């Protein structure tokens, strides 16, 4: 319990009387890659929105490294070391790839109105360090060639990977990835697996990912949590979850479950 880096405790959220999340608990250890799966409408994205501060839970608490983050602004939570990406591409289209990455350092830089507008040395040094870090981050994902491309001139899949790098550059403790593999072709999945593992191993970042590409979840996740209709119905290693009857039922329905478990 105490070793959890991110801890969600009894979180409930309802929208207009509909309970989207119903008393969810989740404990993620440092260095873990956690999968969050479940049928459509299970509350997965709402869960990420609660953790990142976009929705306030009606009940329950969220602790990041022992600090309660409920009620804080999303920007404040980011500062505390939580990064995330989104289901749709949220790359800044009016910036180049390099500038997108430099924006990822916003909360790790401090130059204010006076230092920036007067172009003071302190700011220039910070800016140079930011550019250097951005180039390294591009190297990490193997996309150095794209530094000066405008954000609007990339394929969907490229945008997704750059968004991940843009979050990583700010040195987060935990990163939430909302369907990161959407837009990736199947033969890129293995590379993507490797990238996720490298993020964990080389950057020491704990990952929580929502994913519909079950192969990716099974390959890369240490632990999987299954949500259905706002409740947690299973949790464990990918293998145990895969064979859990309730999970099969949530995905396939009752009849198929019977057929599935028959032979």
């Amino acid at each position, binding site marked *: 319990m105490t070793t959890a880096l991110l801890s969600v405790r009894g979180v409930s959220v309802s929208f207009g009387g509909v309970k989207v999340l119903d008393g969810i608990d989740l404990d993620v250890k440092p260095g873990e890659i956690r999968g969050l799966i479940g049928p459509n409408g299970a509350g997965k994205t709402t869960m990420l929105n609660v953790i*990142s501060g*976009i929705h306030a839970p009606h009940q329950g608490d969220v602790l990041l490294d022992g600090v309660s983050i409920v009620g804080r*602004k*999303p*920007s*404040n939570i*980011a*500062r505390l070391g939580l*990064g995330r990406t*989104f289901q749709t591409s*949220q*790359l*800044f*289209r*009016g*910036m*180049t790839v*390099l*500038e997108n990455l*430099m*924006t*990822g*350092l*916003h*909360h790790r*830089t401090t*130059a204010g*109105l006076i230092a*920036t*507008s*007067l*172009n003071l040395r302190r700011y*220039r040094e*910070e*800016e*140079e360090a*930011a*550019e250097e870090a951005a180039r390294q981050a591009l*190297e990490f*994902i*193997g*996309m*150095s*060639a794209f*530094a*000066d491309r405008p*954000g609007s001139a990339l394929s969907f*899949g*490229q945008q*997704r*990977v750059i968004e991940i790098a*843009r979050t990583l550059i*700010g040195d987060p403790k935990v990163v939430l990835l909302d369907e990161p593999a959407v*837009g*990736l*072709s199947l033969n*890129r999945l293995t*590379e*993507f697996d490797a*990238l996720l593992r490298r993020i964990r191993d080389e950057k020491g970042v704990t990952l929580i990912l929502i994913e519909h590409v079950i192969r990716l979840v099974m390959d890369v996740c240490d632990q999987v949590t299954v949500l259905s209709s706002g409740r947690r119905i299973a949790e464990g290693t990918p293998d145990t979850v895969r064979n859990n009857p309730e999970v099969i039922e949530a995905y396939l329905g009752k009849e198929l479950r019977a057929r599935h478990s028959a032979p």
Partner: protein
Amino acid sequence: MALFGRRNVLLAMLLVAAAAPSFLNAYYVFVANTILIYVLLAIGLNILVGNTGQLAFANAAMFGIGAYGTGLLQVHFGWPFWLAFPSGAVIATAVGLAISLPALRLSGLYLALSTLAFAQFTQWVFLNWEAVTFGAGGFKTPTISFAPLPISKPMGLYYLSLILVIVLFVLAQNLVRSRIGRAFVAVRDSEIAAQSLGVDLLRYKALAFGISGFYAGIAGGLYSAMLNFVSPEGYDLFQMVIQKAMIVVGGLGSIAGSVLGASALVSILELLRKVKGFQEIVFGAILVGFILFMPGGIIGFLKAKVRGWEEPLHRARPGKRSTSAAATSESSEVRP
């Protein structure tokens, strides 16, 4: 460096502007001074609308508050211009920050409507609070003097405006390519992603409102001094439309574009002043033409056609750009 790049062209414009009073008659110096004032307005408005993406309609009101503030502090309290002018700008900045508070919760059309309502309210105050603002007839401001300097008032004011334009242009240019400028664009392009990277939305929207208020306040103070007169109609909805047109024609999100847009539109409006009724028609046609055929404005055209007009949102490190282009080949570990 490209011969007709941004830096050279703007420097040439600056040289012409600096020499202008020596070969222009009094009327054209007045026009040139008007251009300088509108350059300030356009830069401030463009940071708010073009860079930060906040569709606000209060800039004409803040222009007016700068003008009224500067004028009324002189008339009612006998303050010298040199004190009243910065105070007027501070008041406009404060008002900009104040209207940003309710505006921060709104976006898009709702922001446009609420700021428009504020602008109309400001007009109403200018018109009806006669004890202070002298109502619809307006009031005369004292003629300012550049006393120890051997320079006439129009000349002095022209060069004061020019110096302020240079300084505020450079400050804005530095700002937009810094982490603060990138935060503005981040707010414009995706609020949700900006937040998740630690950009405090309220803070950066308020900052953009404050900056546009400051630039408008400075412009207003200069305008009141140039005309020696302040009245409500200079700061009405049409004023707002002119300023919006300048940043659209010049190029949204571009400081250099603000300069070009303001220069172009003031010149065209002045040229057409003699042809009564024609002004509005041509003005409307230009606006429609740009929106339809050149949505990137003059600056968008220049960026596409002429070398040296790029405006990166970061400081290009000298000598570093070429290496990044050269080291492009191998890296393709993940290319989805």
